[in-house]
């Protein structure tokens, strides 16, 4: 196996991993603090992608478009929290799953009515559409490097907020005991709204960066949502550190598994059998990984909440 190709694939895995982390970060915070299972988190990825695509076209500038789309997504987050989700915090997980499942149907249809069912293509400005040869012989798309950089910067930012600020202290306190935070006289309602909207921005940011890579269409967030759930479950609910490590793990496992499993299997079985079993195993891989981790550690790798 070519070590340079392996290195390039590791970059691909890292890029996918930071993308997953952006989505999982909001999910795990909301989960940890408000104890809310939000299936509609994927819809925020979709809304971020659509807003960015529209605003980039409207301002005719990639940077301005994103700069406008971020607060717009924040606003959508505030709206969704206040109108729909706030009443769900005290409900059980089952009700939450159901109501947010209904939200997915609703958001997908709204998007379809506003932007149509047709996939939308958004291009990249020239300064982002080139390639750099960081690995000899394998020019790598600049934009994907940007994604990795943005992802790592945001991860550092979230970590700093959670570990070193007053807001982070409340978040950590909320994750381990949310009744106590309320009892201490913190305006828990606005804290919840703010945290949810912040999570929406991260998810939206992932969607915005996804836009130029893949087509933007109704329901683009759903496959990613399931992966993000896998990430936060493996990482341990409420744990940012756990989410980051699990996201990179899943990103790597998915990318490397997809490419190398069929090759690896060809050593042991016939080519035709490897072609069939390889992709199948690769798509099952992360779920097998998750099940295995949960069987050994039923509360994930870094459980934030005890008891």
């Amino acid at each position, binding site marked *: 196996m070519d070590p340079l190709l392996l290195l390039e694939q590791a970059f691909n895995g890292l890029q996918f991993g930071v993308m997953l982390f952006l989505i999982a970060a909001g999910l795990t915070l909301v989960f940890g603090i408000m104890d809310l299972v939000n299936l509609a988190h994927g819809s925020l990825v979709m809304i971020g992608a659509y807003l960015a695509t529209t605003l980039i076209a409207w301002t005719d500038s990639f940077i301005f478009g994103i700069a406008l789309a971020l607060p717009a997504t924040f606003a959508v987050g505030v709206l969704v929290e206040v109108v729909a989700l706030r009443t769900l915090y005290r409900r059980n997980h089952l009700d939450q799953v159901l109501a947010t499942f*209904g939200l997915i149907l*609703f958001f997908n249809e709204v998007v379809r009515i506003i932007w149509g069912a047709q996939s939308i293509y958004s291009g990249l400005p020239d300064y982002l559409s080139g390639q750099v040869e960081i690995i000899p012989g394998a020019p790598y798309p600049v934009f994907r490097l940007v994604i990795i950089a943005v992802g790592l910067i945001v991860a550092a930012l979230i970590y700093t907020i959670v570990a070193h600020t007053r807001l982070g202290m409340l978040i950590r306190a909320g994750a381990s005991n949310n009744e106590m935070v309320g009892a201490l006289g913190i305006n828990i309602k606005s804290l919840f709204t703010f945290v949810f909207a912040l999570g929406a921005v991260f998810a939206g940011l992932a969607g915005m960066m996804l836009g130029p890579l893949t087509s933007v269409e109704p329901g683009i967030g759903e496959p990613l949502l399931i992966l993000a759930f896998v990430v936060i479950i493996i990482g341990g609910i409420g744990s940012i550190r756990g989410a980051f490590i699990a996201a990179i793990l899943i990103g790597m496992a998915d990318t490397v598994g997809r490419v190398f499993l069929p090759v690896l299997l060809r050593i042991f079985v016939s080519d035709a059998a490897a072609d069939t079993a390889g992709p199948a195993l690769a798509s099952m891989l992360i779920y097998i990984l998750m*099940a295995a981790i949960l*069987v050994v550690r039923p509360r994930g790798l870094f459980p934030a909440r005890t008891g």
Partner: protein
Amino acid sequence: MNRQQIWISLITLTLFAVVPPLTVLFDQPFYLDMFARIMILAIAAVSLDLILGHGGMVSFGHAVYMGIGAYAVGILSYYGIDNGFIQFPLAMLASALIGLIFGAMSLRTSGVYFIMITLAFAQMLFFLAISLEEFGGDDGMSAARSEFAGLIDMYDGVQFYYLIFACLALVLYLLHRLVLSRFGMVIRASRSNEKRMHAIGYPTYRYKLAAFTIAGTICGLAGALFANLNEFVSPDVMHWTHSGEIMVMVIMGGIGTLIGPVLGASAFLLLEEYLPEWMEMVMTNGGEHWAIVMGPILIAIVLFGRGGIHALFASRGKIGVKQND
């Protein structure tokens, strides 16, 4: 389980029983298939209610057992084994086995971890089914209807309908007995306070695992019937949204009531059938956007419809199954 519930069950079953004569009378055989489909999904929903409503186990991968039952029939039919007396027991056995394995691993976790691990297992089998090239992969496979040694002609709509009806009635009766038994009490008690049940010496894990396996088995039966109804099996039946839909039926009808999910399945599938038509009447091409109404309906049921459809018929307060995960 109270008298009211029994009455609602009997009335519902009577209504299902009179469908075939009516379709013959009005020469509308289509409705036979529609109600057959409703009853099959009702069986699946009732089986989920056993673990969801009574056991508090929020399984987000229940459709997978329908898939196993359906694939058991499809695969046996592919190899020329059309005998229903072989197909149905094997379908249920396979679902029971998978239910036992998945349950044994999933029940080590709880709360939201349980929701997600059941989803993960379902996703695993979904992707496995997609890659089963021999059995049609993503395209699915057609399956002939089962043969019951000349006793039941499955291609006769009415006979097939009453077979499903009998299955539904039997499942309701057996689960009704099960829920009232000591076993059912342990299951319900361990939902409200597992630690206490453990402390007084009940191996709650084993009880819950047994319930999980039974639910899987019954759902496998629904899958076998579903394969017969469609004469077709595909991975779609195991898709996570299908699991979500079965869950919706349970909540819509009334959780922890057994007959509620039957009402829920009826309401959900009738809505799915007629909502687009109604919306088409309101505005041109409105039918395409039926989901924009369906979504808020689900949210409204969660927010305001405590107890589901069942609660409309049963007096409030008597259903007495409080949920707290």
